[in-house]
């Protein structure tokens, strides 16, 4: 038995952003940037680690909206174009830096090489299908892929039992579609929990969920091993809570590794540094500046003004990231030793959940950190063993029964980020739609699932619109004050579309069935084609 266990849990999620109605759309870049900077590198690293015999083992949530976007043909084509455009810019940069900014030449060359490699991986090795690549990693025993709320809905702020259940059941069905099996665990959106949610999880066959630290530390009765062992709710669902120490070491903007002076500076991007005319061929049709992903500077120092940042030096950053990975493992050994002493010999489990997008997008060297971490963990020590929450449950170690307390991992630990003076206006609309969805689903519950009737199409699309409106991302962005207009518009438009569809259904005679005019049919078809998430959806999930 090792000294202690370590469970890395990555949460990969982006809201469903897909705008076929426009030839290009700024917010689709969120996905494209994440594919290039996060998902492709992580998949590549995990595969290499596995092939090298390093036995990496971790849990990863790939949220249902992310799965749906990664499997979408339109976004696949647009991403290919996006990446080719970046390569063309990087090649232009290689020439320019060679001629007139030689101090940036090595970095320009790094981008040409890494982006070209990314395109090769995307087109050839993974055949533009990253869901399959993740699935393959699960089959090989590298990943334990877990699910999330269907659209990352903040469950304690969903008003009806049926709508909460739909967030879970639609997610599980979608997981089965993409990964061909039942998920063992779930990342509760925003780690938001309130007592009772575990019953929905158990009904959906989910064995465990990830929570914030105080869900267990403030749970009842007192947890014998704090957050360094899971607990099980009285209904048998297990809970794994976040370790604070590892969160701070990797994530803190104040003291975390990513803030090191040698690492790449996120906020100096060629999309804002270069002359507009030079960039124009690589921008969208509107010619607006945006982040393009080529960044030439290192952080240099916490208080160094942007104009005084020094050139990025990839080799120095690589040395530092290896050092940080070694330090991280050393700290885990110390932590395990200390915990084991406090626990009188019981082996501790440290659960470290992070947003996956930290690794590669916000922290450029993050994927290298994970690479070094697993290599050193495997070859340079034997005291800490990487496992998944599922592995722990299979270990047979006894688990304390406890009722966790309401919590989230957001600011101050509760629901303030998603319910405050700026975004409280959303909830009466969302809650009305939740009640209306169930009322209309109940009205039509007798339809056969294969019934091609308009009622089925309308109800299924209403379910999609409601789920999309419930994404916690909109309330979060509004609170953050970033992309407020887009987030507000998205919420409003899904409620608007839900209402349009509901009125078509409510305006019909239940006995005679729905009859729509040409314009209404066109409207329905257009909404279906735009918000095409969850093609497998079955509206009866909303029935009482």
């Amino acid at each position: 038995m090792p000294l202690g266990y370590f469970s890395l849990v990555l949460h990969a999620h982006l809201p469903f952003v897909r705008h076929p109605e426009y030839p290009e759309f700024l917010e689709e870049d969120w996905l494209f940037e994440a594919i290039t900077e996060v998902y492709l590198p992580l998949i590549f690293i995990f595969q290499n680690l596995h092939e090298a015999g390093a036995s990496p083992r971790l849990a990863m949530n790939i949220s249902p909206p992310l799965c749906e976007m990664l499997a979408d043909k339109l976004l696949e084509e647009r991403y290919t174009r996006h990446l080719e455009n970046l390569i063309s810019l990087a090649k232009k940069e290689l020439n320019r830096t060679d001629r007139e900014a030689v101090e940036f030449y090595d970095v320009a060359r790094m981008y040409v090489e890494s982006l070209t490699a990314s395109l090769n991986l995307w087109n050839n090795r993974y055949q533009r299908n990253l869901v399959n690549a993740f699935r393959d990693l699960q089959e090989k025993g590298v990943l334990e892929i877990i699910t999330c709320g269907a659209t990352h809905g903040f469950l304690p702020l969903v008003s009806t039992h049926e709508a909460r259940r739909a967030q879970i059941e639609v997610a599980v069905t979608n997981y089965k579609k993409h990964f061909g099996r039942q998920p063992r665990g779930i990342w509760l959106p925003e780690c938001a929990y309130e007592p009772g949610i575990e019953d929905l999880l158990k009904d959906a066959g989910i064995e465990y969920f990830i929570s914030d630290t105080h869900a267990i530390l403030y749970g009842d009765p007192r947890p014998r091993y704090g957050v360094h062992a899971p607990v099980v709710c009285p209904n048998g669902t297990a809970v794994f809570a976040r370790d604070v120490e590892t969160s701070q070491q990797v994530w803190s903007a104040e003291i975390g590794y990513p803030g090191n002076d040698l690492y790449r500076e996120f906020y100096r991007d060629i999309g804002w540094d270069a002359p507009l005319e030079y960039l124009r061929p690589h921008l969208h049709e509107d010619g607006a500046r945006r982040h393009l992903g080529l960044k030439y500077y290192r952080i240099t120092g916490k208080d160094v003004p942007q104009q005084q940042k020094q050139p990025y030096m990839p080799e120095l950053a690589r040395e530092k990231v290896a050092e940080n990975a070694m330090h991280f493992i050393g700290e885990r050994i110390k932590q395990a030793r200390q915990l084991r002493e406090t626990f009188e010999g019981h082996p501790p489990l440290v659960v470290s959940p992070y947003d996956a997008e930290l690794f590669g997008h916000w922290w450029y060297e993050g994927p290298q950190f994970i690479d070094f971490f697993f290599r050193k963990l495997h070859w340079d020590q034997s005291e800490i063993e990487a496992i998944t929450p599922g592995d722990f449950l299979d270990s047979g170690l006894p688990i304390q029964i406890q009722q966790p307390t309401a919590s989230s991992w957001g600011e101050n630990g509760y629901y303030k980020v998603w319910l405050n003076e700026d975004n409280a206006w959303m909830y009466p609309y969302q809650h009305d739609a939740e009640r209306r969805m169930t009322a209309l689903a109940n009205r039509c519950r007798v339809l056969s699932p294969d019934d091609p009737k308009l009622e089925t199409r309308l109800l299924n699309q209403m379910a999609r619109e409601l789920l999309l409106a419930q994404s916690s991302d909109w309330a979060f962005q509004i609170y953050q004050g970033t992309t407020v207009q887009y987030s507000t518009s998205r919420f409003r438009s899904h409620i608007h579309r839900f209402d349009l569809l509901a009125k078509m259904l409510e305006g019909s005679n239940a006995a005679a069935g729905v009859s729509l005019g040409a314009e209404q049919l066109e409207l329905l078809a257009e909404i279906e084609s735009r918000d095409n998430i969850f093609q497998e959806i079955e509206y009866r999930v909303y029935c009482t």
Partner: protein
Amino acid sequence: MSDFDSKKDLFEEEMPIVFGLDDVVSSGEMIKNVEVSAAVALDAAEDVSPVFKELASVELPELPKENRARLQMQTPNRLFFYWSMKSNPFQTLRRAFGTPDSYTLVARLVDLKRNVEAIYPIEAEGTWWFNVDSDSRYQAEIGFYAPNRPYVRVMFSNTIDTPRKRPSSRVATSADWKISARVFAEVLDISGFKQDAFEVALAGDRPQEIQAETHRAFAKFVEGNDSDFAGIASDELRYALMLIASGLQIEHLRYRIDASLFALLEASVAKLSAERAAAALKEHFDINAEDIYEHEETGEQVIGASLVNFPRRLKRKRSVSGYNPVSSFR
């Protein structure tokens, strides 16, 4: 919680460039451009088909006239309530009781655990934020109130359980999971929850004694009697004493402590001071002023997301008998 497109605030200076200064933009422009781009996309719908126009609309539908009364928790000390009514409530009242002249439409918040209530005059439709107690159960109602007349309930909301804000005092009964206060304080400390570790260690395995001592300290502090704060948890009383002793003004405690305790303190505000709180802590718990922690409302900022929850920290640790913090965790 990935704030994937959150690229503002951290880039306040004018940016230098590799090329030349003419093209420099500020972060403000950057964010504006992001927003304009989305707006342009939506406005572009002007010249297209009716279907496109319809779907470009981001107008919220009018909420139908319905009876709604929904309570949601924001924090253990704050609830959000929204309500609306399908028909004029005064007409209903008139039909039932004749003249409604002396009645006022109110929101009534009932603490179902402690069996106390508060009423607030309201309109027929609106929203309200309630300050409440942690570790309790609430329901809101809409009704008619008049002095010396029966209260008339029109509708009621869902119930909300506010969580405990600190560790449970209950220890598992099974020998496998039983834990002493001293070891549990170590567990909390090692988990980064130093303030809670301090409190658990302070209370030790003799909660009744520490509760009685807390009540004595608090009674002296507010110059009141035990009965004034009988329903308030003793750890919440100590927490308030600590906050006040650390120099926080009473008003700054509004959303940090239970509503009933805040009301009590607010009523005695003239008599309260940091010095008096520190003296009470010294006399009853032997806590020195320099050992009093500084409450940190928010945790550290994390990279690429909003403020992730980190535990409150002690400014300075103090050894409580039998408990020595073990971690080097900062």
